[in-house]
């Protein structure tokens, strides 16, 4: 049994508020034979500059320190790739540091950038993330990813990270999904939804117009996961500029408050020990006493079914930003849908639904831009970017991309960044005839969850319009 001390549960404090001023991203694709990583990084930086009507040279003059998210040196075959990018961006002699926390690298990069401004160290920082996953064959790529598991105890077992995750999916599927066909279809619905939203995103690598049956008929990866339940392997870059209040308003009239928090849990799932469920503000102490009766086998927490790191990131982040009920207080979320089933698990970890009831977030229609049952706006739309399943998972960039996507809704500029024909043309992609504006009307607050592998690291990035603070 693990117990936390009160000091460990302290809500993080900032010396000053932090603002997201702008962000940008490159095109995302499975491979980029025609571009070096630095070209993609510069594409994203130029987009961020243009978003606030600044030239790259003007924006660079504000930056005081730099935070670079780049998960796998192996993939890039370049140790200290961050130093190369820093030089190519012309940002020497500013201090810079590389950040790597597996799949959560993008979110962790924002976390470091956030703390640098919150502490007063820097007035303006660059958070830039990228990944280059196309320079080895896929099976070697899978070996590299599996190298982020424990190299003595796990990696030799199949050299396949998906397998280390799939055992958790199997447990959740049996205990909380009860192996029901209806649950399997709910999983598939997420894949259909996110690939469908990706069709409206010119950056997206995996847009598809598919049905639940297409997902259910796709090849089995590891039961219950099929190929179309799984996220993409991608190349691309994304960046964000974070500032203190004074600098933020010098750069733009419309910066957003940003809060970033983080949690972690064992690298080897084998090492997980039991604990009481840490509660979020919208949960009560007696809520889970009968969890094991309602879901036999579900009374072991976090067991192999919950992501403690996600729960802790939400706990710290909600405390900082004054979030009580995520479904009520947020207007949209971008979640780390590495697999359809882990998406459902995350709904519970971050309090969108209680443990055991994640599926109802999808089945109610709440997670859609437009609720298919009521034709009204969804209560809390999820992954309108297409997520990791439909848009991309260029690991170091992913958490940053999610935050930018959420920000574009709160800025009311989502359509501007996704509709422009010249962007579709520049990326060599065909804009669908039924392109739909997914702007969430009057979005004020949003959340992005960045997550590593079996839940070893998770960050929560919360964006709030300054006129709609909760504390």
């Amino acid at each position, binding site marked *: 049994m693990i117990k936390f001390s009160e000091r460990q549960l302290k809500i993080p404090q900032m010396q000053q508020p932090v603002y997201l001023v702008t962000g940008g991203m490159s095109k995302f694709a499975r491979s980029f034979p025609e571009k070096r990583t630095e070209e993609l990084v510069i594409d994203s930086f130029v987009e961020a500059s243009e978003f606030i009507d600044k030239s790259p040279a003007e924006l660079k003059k504000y930056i005081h320190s730099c935070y670079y998210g780049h998960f796998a040196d192996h993939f890039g075959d370049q140790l200290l790739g961050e130093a190369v990018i820093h030089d190519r961006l012309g940002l020497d002699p500013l201090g810079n540091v590389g950040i790597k926390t597996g799949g959560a690298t993008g979110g962790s990069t924002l976390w470091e950038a956030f703390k640098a401004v919150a502490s007063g160290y820097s007035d303006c920082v660059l958070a830039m993330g990228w990944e280059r996953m196309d320079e080895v064959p896929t099976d070697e790529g899978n070996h590299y990813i599996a190298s982020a598991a424990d190299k003595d105890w796990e990696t030799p077992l199949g*050299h396949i990270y998906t397998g280390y995750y799939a055992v958790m999916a199997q447990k959740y599927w049996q205990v909380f999904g009860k192996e029901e066909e209806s649950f399997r279809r709910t999983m598939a619905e997420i894949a259909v939804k996110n690939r469908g939203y990706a069709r409206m995103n010119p950056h997206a690598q995996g847009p598809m117009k598919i049905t639940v049956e297409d997902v259910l008929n796709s090849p089995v990866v590891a039961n219950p996961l099929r190929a179309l339940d799984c996220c993409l392997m991608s190349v691309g870059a994304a960046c964000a500029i974070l500032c203190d209040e004074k600098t933020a308003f010098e750069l733009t009239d419309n910066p957003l408050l940003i809060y970033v928090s983080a949690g972690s849990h064992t690298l080897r799932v084998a090492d997980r020990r039991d604990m009481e469920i840490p509660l979020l503000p919208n949960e009560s102490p007696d809520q889970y006493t009968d969890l094991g009766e309602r879901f036999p086998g579900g009374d072991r927490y976090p067991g192999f079914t919950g992501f403690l790191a996600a729960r802790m990131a939400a706990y710290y982040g909600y405390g900082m930003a004054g979030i009580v009920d995520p479904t009520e207080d947020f207007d949209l979320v971008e979640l780390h849908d590495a697999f359809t089933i882990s998406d459902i698990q995350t709904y519970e970890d971050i309090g969108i639904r209680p443990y055991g009831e994640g599926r109802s977030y999808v089945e109610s229609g709440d997670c859609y831009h437009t609720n298919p049952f009521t034709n009204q706006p969804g209560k809390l739309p999820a992954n309108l970017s297409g997520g990791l399943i439909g848009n991309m998972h260029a690991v170091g960039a992913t958490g940053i991309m999610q935050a930018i996507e959420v920000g574009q809704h709160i800025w009311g500029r989502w359509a501007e960044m996704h509709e422009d024909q010249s962007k579709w043309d520049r990326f060599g992609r065909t804009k669908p005839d039924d392109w739909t504006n997914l702007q969430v009307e009057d979005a004020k607050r949003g959340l992005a969850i960045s997550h590593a592998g079996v839940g070893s690291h998770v960050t929560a990035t919360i964006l709030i319009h300054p006129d709609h603070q909760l504390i």
Partner: protein
Amino acid sequence: MNIENRGTVRVENGRYRFNGKFHYAYPNNPIRNEDGKLMGVTNPRDVTHVHMYGGEAPFFEGLGKGKLLGTRCINPDCDANGSIFIPFRIHCPDCLSKNEIVDMTGTAQKGATVHTFMITERTGAFNTLPKPIRFVNVEFEGVPTILMGNLAIGEPKIGMKVVPIFNTVNPTYTILDLSWVPAGTDESELPEGFTFG
């Protein structure tokens, strides 16, 4: 590929003694597109890395001798006092004192239970397990952690009883020397080189 004289290492007087070759250089090749335009180059390499097990060495030595070793916190002042850890932890994760090694072979043989599992045809490069691979995550009575391993025979199911088998004939000194089979499996059915210990 010529890998004659592949490197080996001994430790003598606390120092590494290297013998043979630890890396092989190969020429690279240009990568061109359909128009013949240069796009990049291949960067071939073949390296042998040296990896020390440190305090976990007894565990990996034990597998080849048919032993499943865990560890236990023996610090009377620690909340985790008496907790047994598999995977083997050299130090207690709570108090960081040195754990004592405990032989868990008998406990595992009496009844380990599948907590969850996974079956897949997909593997990464360098995989040596037969496909489809079947992972089982195994619970032991009185142990708070859940060990991941490979089911060598049969179809996994949550709640099934399994027993450990060991590559005692020609050990690799890796986690692959440990595998699992359904309880009641006959020794004659085991994969080549594996025994019940």
